[in-house]
């Protein structure tokens, strides 16, 4: 079968993956699993409950955020 590679823009940076993957798998690969984060995919929030289902496709733009100190 044909090999397929995808590109994702995560927090403004280009990342390559040699296969499609779910949000869960992405977080796993980024060691962000079970961290207190929130994700926006192409301008839409990805509910935590959907991390397993949603499969990321080539060209997806993601914002992955955490809480930091601020006033």
């Amino acid at each position: 079968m044909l090999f397929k590679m995808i590109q994702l823009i995560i927090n403004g940076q280009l990342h390559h993956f040699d296969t499609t993957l779910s949000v869960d798998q992405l977080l796993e690969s980024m060691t962000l699993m079970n961290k207190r984060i929130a994700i926006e995919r192409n301008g839409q929030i990805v509910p935590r409950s959907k991390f397993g289902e949603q499969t990321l496709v080539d060209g997806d733009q993601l914002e992955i955020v955490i809480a930091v100190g601020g006033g």
Partner: protein
Amino acid sequence: MDTLNISDKAYSSRLLIGTGKYKDLTQTREAIDASGAQIITIAVRRTNIGQSPDEPNMLDLLPPSQYTLLPNTAGCFTADEAIRTLHLARELLDGHSLVKLEVLGDLKTLYPNIVETIKAAKILVKEGFHLMVYTSDDPIVAKQLEDIGCVAIMPLASLIGSGMGILNPWNLQIIINNAKVPVIVDAGVGTASDATISMELGCDGVLMNTAIAAAKNPVLMASAMRKAVRAGREAFLAGRMTKQPYNASPSSPINNIIASSKNKAA
């Protein structure tokens, strides 16, 4: 009991503080404790990819059971950025809807962009957010934001992080007199007396960050601010004496003084 009421929740503390600019999370923690604050602001930022997975997390520091977290939109210069940031914040905090909306005009002054703030407020209120909104000391805009449905109006005392105190107490007074929702001075407080003056004017609370974090001794300043806000609130409730610019008023009886020519004459 005298409480600050926001979105049907009562707070005994009228001092709200931010969590930025501290040396470390330990100092942040100690400052929060010393301040007695119950509402704590946080920011939402991109996670640094590849950062150490076990770096301390701001949320672990602030159990929702103990504190009301107030995610802000600091750094946003358009309604769109602010709205997306608050969507992420709500998700991050499991549906939490009480947030601080601020849309800034430029990086040099961080003065609010009123047009974008109003635009964002209209949308976010419709989406069910409870907005505590950072604004200028424009009394008409303050009223418009209240009419839109913001749960607290938070006018600046002076530029964010400037420590200049209340530059225009007259405008602030008009805002306070007109408002039916809590008015909280946000930004510009530099030292304890600034907080006391804010409360004496009739503000319902004071929100600060730099005044504490940038003090030589942040934890002691946090303690000072706690007392300063209470002192100002009590003075407001007690009702201050009226000013007499040019006429003194003796505190001791002026009669029955022992014999002397001078004060008899007087």
